[in-house]
């Protein structure tokens, strides 16, 4: 193994890792927004919204994320959507992971015992008040871990945007392979950096999970 090479190129990889982190953070935020809206739609008493939420979930979970990304980035201009690669990456991955998060958030909300809603409604609270003060605080505790699983998948999923040449970790590895012919070292380095990002995120999720449980 060419340790010298690794030491030489790793600052470039670090820069790429920063981009992967940025991509992950923005994607996670967009995913959470889409997931919350999706869950709200899925749980809405309006038939049309309910259907819209269900369609969103099955569409985006039922097709490869890579196809969605290509459709947005390469197919977008054809219908007047001009995005640079980074923007397309964030939007494509964010909306995709949002479909998974929709199910996570909805699952947490409906697994709060229905007696809780009944007790709140019986006291005279509106359905919104019951949701806001009784159900969501309990659902939030239940969703931290499964959302962590979604975020883990999302971080690994950012590798896909290499395919539309965003200069993140995976793309950087490929580029250096082109000039060094050392795929083993380059992919090992990229993999190690992914692992660090995922490990730290995982610790953060565990910490948050413990915190919301104790209070």
């Amino acid at each position: 193994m060419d340790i010298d090479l690794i030491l030489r190129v790793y600052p470039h990889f670090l820069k790429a890792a920063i981009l992967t982190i940025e991509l992950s953070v923005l994607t996670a935020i967009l995913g959470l927004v889409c997931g919350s809206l999706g869950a709200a739609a899925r749980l809405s008493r309006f038939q049309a919204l309910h259907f819209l939420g269900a369609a969103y979930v099955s569409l985006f979970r039922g097709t490869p994320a890579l196809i969605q990304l290509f459709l947005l980035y390469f197919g977008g201009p054809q219908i007047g959507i001009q995005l640079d690669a980074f923007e397309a990456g964030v939007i494509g991955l964010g909306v995709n992971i949002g479909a998974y998060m929709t199910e996570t958030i909805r699952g947490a909300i409906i697994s709060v015992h229905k007696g809780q809603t009944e007790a709140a409604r019986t006291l005279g609270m509106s359905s919104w008040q019951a949701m806001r003060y009784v159900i969501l605080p309990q659902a939030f505790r239940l969703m931290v871990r499964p959302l962590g699983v979604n975020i883990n998948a999302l971080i690994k999923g950012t590798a896909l945007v290499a395919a539309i040449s965003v200069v993140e970790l995976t793309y950087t590895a490929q580029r250096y392979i082109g000039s060094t012919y050392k795929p083993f070292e380059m992919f090992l380095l990229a993999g190690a950096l992914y692992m660090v990002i995922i490990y730290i995120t995982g610790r953060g999720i565990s910490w948050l999970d413990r915190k919301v449980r104790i209070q």
Partner: protein
Amino acid sequence: MTHHRPFVDIRHAQKCYGELEVLKDISLQVEQKQIVAIIGPSGSGKSTLLRAINDLDPLTSGEVWLDGVQVNKLLPHTQYEKHINQIRQQIGMVFQHFNLFPHLTVRENITLAPKLLKGISDDEANVLAEQQLEHVGLIDRIDYHPSQLSGGQKQRVAIARALAMKPKLMLFDEATSALDPELVEEVNQVMKMLAEEAMTMIIVTHEMGFAESVCDRVLFMDGGVVVEEGAPEVIFRNPTQERTKNFLRKHLEGVK
């Protein structure tokens, strides 16, 4: 017009779950300060009837009136929601499994609804919580979480939470059925105290002794109908219907 208006008036209540008719044309009137027990075998429709009173399980047909106002009025959704939230503030309900809010302290369990719905200040809410907990004998648990309480204590907090809304009517759905036998009495004591304070109550129960000692009237339900009703002495000592006799005999055997 001096036509008498019952406090709680259930008229021709019918409830169907698909093909299954769970309540079959039940009418029931309860006067102010009356305490009515509903007994009957499992699946006879006791809970369904009780939960129709605050429209938690809406009737298929029939009417429910409380103090001259129709509870299950037909209204457009938003108007109905406003109406029913108003009505429900006046009807306390106690569940078999307590349904305390586990993420809130005992104090917050009690003050959440009054704060949201009556717009009282934090200070007023605290006074209210203290009063209600004093009432059920749990003032020393005010800052505990529900998970730190025994079943009997949880149920007393649930009663205090309902009472904090100053209801005109209290509904109990087997309030002691989920409790260990040694914890039943403390909850019964609280309910007796409410009886002495002249609260109007409708109590679904499996405890015949309690029903006999506290209630003014007993309804025996079976298969979605009220088979027999009357004073506790009559229902428990001299029931006229065969089904009532059978139920009470089986129940006595079960208790022994």
